[in-house]
């Protein structure tokens, strides 16, 4: 299994915003442990909230990286806020919308909203899942003068291919 928690990027405006979607699937192994059948309670597959945060981190991280042409190694450094209003289930689609609040040489601050669409639901409208605020660090510009490997191990082929297949170039 791969550590990619978004399936497609649907919008990318340099230095401003990024949007992505993720389809929650029963083919994802961890859903069978979250949560398994226990006693008389049947299995309850629910998308783990920390992985929703990771999806937002990947969406916002790509936005922050793209703002500086992927020259920086962008690392999630702080989850300032993460609130959740509802659970998300297999068969539903998560929508991530991230905006860039502030960026400078040291790092960036982002705000994001998560929505869910239920294809089987009464209404095709998207519902609010939560709000996630994050901070990223440009680790090559760190205060302590620590050196990191030269190649960009953050924006790997996995993310660049995703960008390209979503129709957004994907050149480093």
């Amino acid at each position, binding site marked *: 299994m791969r550590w990619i928690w978004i399936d497609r990027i649907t919008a990318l405006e340099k230095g401003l915003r990024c949007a992505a979607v993720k389809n929650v699937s029963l083919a994802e192994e961890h859903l069978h442990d979250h949560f398994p059948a226990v006693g008389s309670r049947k299995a309850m597959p629910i998308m783990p909230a920390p992985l929703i945060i990771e999806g937002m981190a990947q969406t916002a991280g790509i936005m922050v990286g793209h703002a500086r042409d992927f020259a920086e190694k962008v690392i999630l*450094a*702080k989850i*300032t806020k993460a609130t959740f209003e509802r659970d998300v289930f297999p068969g539903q689609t998560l929508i991530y919308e991230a905006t860039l*609040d*502030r960026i*400078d*040489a*040291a*790092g960036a*601050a982002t705000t994001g909203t998560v929505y869910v669409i239920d294809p089987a639901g009464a209404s095709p409208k998207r519902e609010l899942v939560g709000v996630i605020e994050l*901070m990223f*660090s440009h680790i090559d*510009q*760190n*205060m302590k*003068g620590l050196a990191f490997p030269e190649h960009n191990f953050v924006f790997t082929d996995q993310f660049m291919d995703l960008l390209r297949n979503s129709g957004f170039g994907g050149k480093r």
Partner: protein
Amino acid sequence: MNRDEIQAKVKDVLVDALGVDDDEVVPTAALGADLGAESIDYLDISFRLEKAFGIKIEQGEMIPEAALQNPEFVKDGKISDAGMAELKRLMPYADFSALEEDRNVTRVVDVFTVDAMVKFVEMKLEKK
């Protein structure tokens, strides 16, 4: 804006950025040692202060990174006399009395008290 107003806004910034209670943010509280701030939190605080006060804080302005990496100012993890003079020049809003006794460079962040933050903002607003 008077000092009380600045202090109130700085308090809000620190409560939001560090997730501490209102009553923990007293003037003598050190952001690192007492309020649990880590390096990314200083960036968060810097961004929030910019927004709250309409000021611009350059990288290295709040925490003098370049000076701390200069071998003339920091030797074997200790701040030299030249280093102390430079830090006092760069950060007139901070109280260096504790650092005078213990020159350990890891203690520099201790000068960042709530009071130092308030004075820093006052200084920035005056320069505007």
